[in-house]
């Protein structure tokens, strides 16, 4: 039932030992995961359709050193591929690492060469990711993840005099490598969100004693306040064109959705009254904002025109829905559904509303640039860790960031 129980990197010891098995067993078997076994426990408004889980693309990989194979496995697994024997595989990737990484992709049985490329420059790891991008593009036509990065919040495991969980903003490559600590405030820093083009970030920090919103330029490290009003300034989300920020402010005496320019000017209040707000996100065309609201009761997802107007409940009957994130292709919204108060499920609903589908245990989903992989946060032993989930196949990999509680991923795109 638990995803973690299904994570069986059974091939890893062999890889680490330097043995490249031509018939490597599947590294991830989460494809079998579904919640159908306990469907009766769910409300009928959330239907889990096991039949919608797609089988992975089987690929046979040979000729690479173990460390290269591991990077390939991570990248391809979270994009819906699975290592298989040459007999079973739909594709064959033959490679070598001779200073640089090179690879040849063949169709089933080696009948046709789909590409043969060598990669130079960058690190060897970036070359492997470029090779994975090429495989994904050739087979599925979609973009890979090799150039993307993830921002997140990391609780450093110590508390200040006020008992506060000190947390800082980090950025890493999408696979968790090259992590960089962006803030060193010894304060509560949270809710990072990328400025499009990965030029910088916005996030919440109480470094000044109040929960305020800052923008952070990645090239200079310069920070600028975006919202520092009385009350709380929370949950910033940058518009797709990077000019505006949606956020939650209580300056007006209610917890409401506001939009400002990136420099904090031109603040406009979008919700009023019982339509309070948390965790807003933008549609990719910038015209609509989705957010969670209690609406005077249990939290549900709402949408509202970014220029102001009427808030509409997106999901009928789905209760305890929070933390929406709109896919880059505009088709779906991922969100967290609280089940009771201790369990969290990542769900997906069509952007036009309707029936949602639970896809994994976890919370706070953020779509990757390919609109199929989600970065999610996963609770274990009262700490959170980050996981990448391929939605169509349910395959996943955990990011190697296991020191300190990591949460609130924001996938740069």
């Amino acid at each position: 039932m638990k995803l973690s129980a299904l994570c069986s990197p059974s091939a890893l010891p062999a890889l680490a030992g330097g043995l490249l098995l031509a018939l490597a067993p599947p590294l991830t078997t989460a494809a079998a995961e579904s919640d159908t076994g306990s469907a009766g426990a769910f409300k009928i408004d959330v239907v889990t359709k096991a039949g919608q889980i797609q089988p992975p693309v089987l690929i046979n990989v040979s000729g690479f050193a173990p460390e290269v194979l591991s990077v390939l496995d991570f990248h391809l697994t979270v994009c819906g591929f699975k290592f298989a024997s040459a007999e079973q595989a739909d594709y064959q990737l033959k490679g070598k690492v001779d200073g640089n990484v090179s690879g040849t992709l063949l169709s089933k049985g080696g009948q046709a060469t789909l590409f043969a490329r060598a990669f130079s420059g960058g690190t060897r790891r970036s070359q492997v990711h470029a090779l994975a991008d090429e495989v994904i593009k050739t087979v599925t036509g979609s973009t890979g993840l090799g150039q993307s990065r993830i921002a997140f919040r990391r609780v450093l495991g110590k508390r200040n005099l006020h008992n506060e969980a000190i947390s800082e903003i980090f950025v890493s490559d999408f696979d968790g490598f090259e992590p960089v600590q962006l803030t060193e405030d010894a304060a509560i820093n949270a809710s990072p969100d990328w400025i499009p083009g990965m030029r910088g970030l916005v996030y919440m920090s109480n470094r000044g004693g109040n929960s305020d919103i800052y923008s952070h330029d990645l090239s200079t490290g310069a920070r600028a306040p975006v919202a520092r009003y009385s009350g709380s300034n929370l949950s910033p989300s940058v518009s797709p064109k990077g000019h505006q920020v949606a956020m939650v402010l209580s300056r007006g005496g209610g917890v409401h959705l506001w939009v400002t320019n990136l420099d904090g000017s031109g603040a406009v209040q979008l919700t009023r009254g019982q339509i309070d707000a948390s965790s807003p996100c933008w549609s990719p065309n910038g015209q609509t904002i989705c957010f969670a609201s209690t609406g005077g009761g249990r939290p549900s997802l709402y949408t509202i025109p970014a220029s102001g107007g009427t808030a509409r409940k997106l999901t009928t009957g789905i209760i305890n829905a929070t933390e929406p994130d709109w896919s880059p292709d505009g088709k779906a919204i991922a969100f967290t559904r609280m089940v009771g108060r201790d369990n969290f499920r990542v769900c997906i609903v069509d952007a036009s509303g309707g029936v949602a589908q639970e896809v994994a245990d976890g919370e706070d989903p953020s779509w990757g640039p390919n609109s199929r992989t989600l970065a999610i946060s996963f609770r274990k032993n009262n700490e959170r860790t980050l996981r990448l989930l391929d939605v169509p196949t349910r395959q996943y990999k955990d990011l190697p960031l296991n020191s300190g509680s990591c949460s609130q991923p924001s996938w740069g795109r």
Partner: protein
Amino acid sequence: MKLSHAVLYTVLAAGLVAGCSRRPKNITPLPSSERVGGGTTGLTPNTRPVGGGGELGDGGRAGRLPTGPGTAGTDLPGSTTSTPLGTDSTPTINKPTTDLSQPDRAKWETWPQDPDALRAAIVYFDLDKSVVRRADTGNVAKIADYLKSHPGYMVKLDGHADERGTEEYNRALGERRALSVRESLLNLGVSQESVVTATFGEDRPAELGHNEAAWSKNRRVEPVVLIPPGATR
């Protein structure tokens, strides 16, 4: 499972670093991966702040900017628009209310804070609720009485949630609790100019445990007295 990951990543990182001495011009180098092999546990790639060059402006750090594909591939020889919104509409309620706006930040921001003066007036809440319980109205009255007997003083209401619930929801919940106490104070005749709110979500628990005994202590609003300049305590 963790161990095998650990071994794997250590081996992996070591192998990768060995082969990454050259970087293309268009990749801003991060601090080199000294992490490899340096750690005693070797469990994960270490994280270390970017050294140098980042300490600018407002104290933030610089990070690597996105670059074009730093890795070039060469062929070897031989070789949205948004969808319609839901139909179930819940119109925004534009209930005309009295102005509940918070006082200007500049007014109170530099005032000394006293978290102890009203420690006996902490207001506690039921699970996932922001309504002040009948049993706690006495504590709200204590806050109101304090403000009435200390003209010119202000109170900051720090809202908190227990660790259950999602992070941003908890932040909003803490703020809703603070605003709920604020509204109760206003109903008792306290001026809106003398009460501000804040939220810490689940990040500043009164008790660190992971059980109801701790959680019930953490679902709270703590009144912090803001002392005006020149006032004697």
